[in-house]
Structures are given as structure tokens and as C-alpha cells.
């Protein structure tokens, strides 16, 4: 469960918290553990893992942080070097 804090960018959303799924504007940040074709095994901030479809953000690399929703990655999360002032 590495880098847990880095993944909690979206309030408390995790793969196990299905309330966010239906409500639909809260994506879940996950880190890519391994990639196989159009799917990637990903881990969330709580350490839970799920297979995520990654066609819409391909190519993805192990270690990248993706924003997922409904089992599909919709964006990549980039590190923000500075907090906007």
C-alpha cells in the first residue's frame, strides 16, 4: 500500500466506496500495478486492487496515477509541483 496519501486526491474515494460511482462526478485515483493489453491492475489509496480498462488513456505505465470511474480510466493525474496561490 505504497504512496497512500498521494492517491487520496479525491476526498475519500476508494474502489470500495461505491457511493461515488453512482454520483458520478467523483473519480477514484489509483496507481497502475501491472498492464495487460487494454486492462491494468490498479491499486487505490486503501490498498484495494481492481482491473481497470485503460484504452481511453493509453499508453499507461506501471506506477502512473490514473483517475478512474466505473472501472474505466478517464484521465491521468500529474504531480502538481506548486499549490496555486
Amino acid at each position, binding site marked *: 500500500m505504497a504512496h497512500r*496519501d498521494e492517491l487520496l486526491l479525491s476526498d475519500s474515494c476508494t474502489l470500495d466506496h461505491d457511493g461515488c460511482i453512482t454520483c458520478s462526478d467523483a473519480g477514484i485515483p489509483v496507481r497502475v500495478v501491472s498492464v495487460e493489453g487494454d486492462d491494468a491492475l490498479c491499486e487505490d489509496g486503501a490498498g484495494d486492487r481492481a482491473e481497470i*480498462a485503460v484504452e481511453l488513456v493509453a499508453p499507461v505505465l506501471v506506477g502512473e496515477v490514473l483517475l478512474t470511474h466505473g472501472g474505466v480510466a478517464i484521465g491521468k493525474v500529474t504531480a502538481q509541483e506548486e499549490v*496555486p496561490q
Partner: protein
Amino acid sequence: MKYVDEFRNAELARAVSSEINSLVDPDRRYKIMEICGGHTHTIYRHGIKDLLPEGVELVHGPGCPVCVLPMGRVDEGIAIAERPEVIFTCFGDMMRVPGSKGNLQEVKAQGADIRMVYSPLDALRIARENPDREVVFYAIGFETTAPSTALTLQRAKKEGIENFSVFCNHVTIVPPVRALLDSPDLRLDAFVGPGHVSTVIGCRPYEFMPEDYGKPVAVAGFEPLDLLQSILMVMRQLDEGRCEVENQYGRAVPWEGNLRALESLAEVFELRPYFEWRGLGFVSQSALKLSEAYADFDAEVRYSSPGVRVADPKACQCGEVLKGVLKPPECRVFGTACTPESPLGALMVSSEGACAAYYNFGRKSYEKVEIGSRR
């Protein structure tokens, strides 16, 4: 690598709060709408409201797809779910959204085969595993969720899976915002734009808000400091007489959005001429249906859904709350006939619904000041 620590930094939050305070004109009230239900949730969960000066009021917008779904669409889903050949699949919260004669959970208890899924891809897997049954997915959500439905349908088509269809209730965020801006009920000064919808559609679609209506916008993330900073951004715009779309959530929102996701949406969906929204009525070009190329997967066609319209229960004031005209505690049934355990209206069902957020995180502080103002 900075993703979140800085966005929960109390010292920074106090500094931002203090700067917002310094920008307030004491003779003026500022009404800022957070469009997204996820933001409403963050505001109450983290007590953002208490960090804002009295003259700055946050108004909750229509950005919770469960909450804006009219009752007729729930009834139509239930009618499909009751068919014996159907395995009906949906996200968790949909199970409890009230239709005119009950909800999906109650229909399931009466024997219908209704299964909660985490992803439409799970529904497609169920279809693969049950070739002798018809599997229907109840699709709901803004542009954040629509790509997952689109991708699932693209995979279904590619694999030639014929026993899978989608009952499509996807909606788009821009038309209801325009409807709100045109509404005489509400005078808003600025907007906090939805974060994850914008991951898909980018920031450009909001440009009409400053250009046509003179309203500043800041697209925001979901951490407490994200919200505060976006409020500061629009307050600065108001103070300096600027009016534009700014992106506070650059770490997850590219200005142009996700072009591949947008291509996928364009292939699978087309705009409906109009769609009914709870509280807003019929809004033109505000929802998606399956395109001609995917018509074979359209559950509305497959099961000849009649398009029924059902009025909300008389006591329910979700419509006024959705438009920001009433605060949740001002609804006559808030916390009494309508609670998260036994919701009368959809705003109390969804965890991002404004009423559920108030009930769970903000209710006590409101009881003192607002209980007497219920209408």
C-alpha cells in the same frame, strides 16, 4: 510529487480563507454555485462553509445525476427489471432511488433479478456468462461516467454480444447550467466548475459562462483547499473586474479534456432533442441516447419504453433545492419524512445529494438558525 498533502494543509487553508475575507465588500452578498455534488459533499464534510465570511454564500448546483433523474425514468427502469427474461444491473445508489411505486431494491425483494455492479464492464461480463438471459445496464451519470458506458458498448459491439443492452440516462452538464443562468429565480455571481467532468470535457465548454453571462468560473478539485482556492480565484476575478474560466485542478484537468474519451462518446451517443430534469423540467439537448450505430444495444428500443412522466410527491421540494432556491433544511420534509434511511426525494438518497450531505455533516449547525424558516 504533490497530489494531496498540500491540499489539506490547515495553515494554507487559513491563509486562503483570510484572503477571501479581505476581498469581501461588506455592502455586498456573493452567491457562488458549486455545480458538482461531489463539491457539496466536500464542503460539508470538511466544514468549508465555516471558513467563509458571512457575505459569501455557497449555492448547491444540479451536479448529482441521481438527484436530477425524474421519477418516470426510475419507473421505466423498474418496468424493464420486472421482465422475467431480464437480468437488470445498476450502480449501488440507484437501487434506493424512489419511483412512483417503489424502488429497485423492493422489486428485487419481490423476486426480480437485479444485480448491483461496480462498472458497466461487470454488466457486460454477466451478459457473457448468461447467454440465455437478457442483461440490461441502467446507465446514469454526467460526462465522468458516460465514457465507461461508451467503452463497454464498444467492447460489446466488437465481441458481437447480442444479449446486452443499455437503458441510457446519461446527462450533460452544460445545458442545465445554461438553464440555471437563464432562470429568473436565481442570481448567481460566480461558479465553481466540476472537477472530474472536466477531466473528460476540459475547460473550454464553460467559456460561454463568462462570455455570454458575465460569470467567472474556476474548475476545482475535491480537496478542501481545492475548494477554498477556487472560491478565492472567482472572488479575485470579481474584485478585479475580470471574468474568465480558470483551472484550479490542473493536476487532473487538461484544458482540452480527454480527446480519446470524447471521440468514444461521439461514436456511441448522440444528443437527445430534450430530456426531463427534476427541478428544471425539460432541457433541450441535455442528455445522451445511443447513436444509430449502437441502436441494437438500446434498451429503450428493445423494450419499447413509453417515456412516462410522473410528478414528484407533493411534499417533496427536491426541485427547489436543486435549483438552489431552497437550502435543504428549508424543505418541509427534511429530516422528518425524508431521511437517508427512508428517502422521499433523490437528494436524500445519493451520498452527493445536497440533502444527504446536510443531513450527515451539516445538519446540527443549521438546526439552530434555519429550522424556523422552513416553508
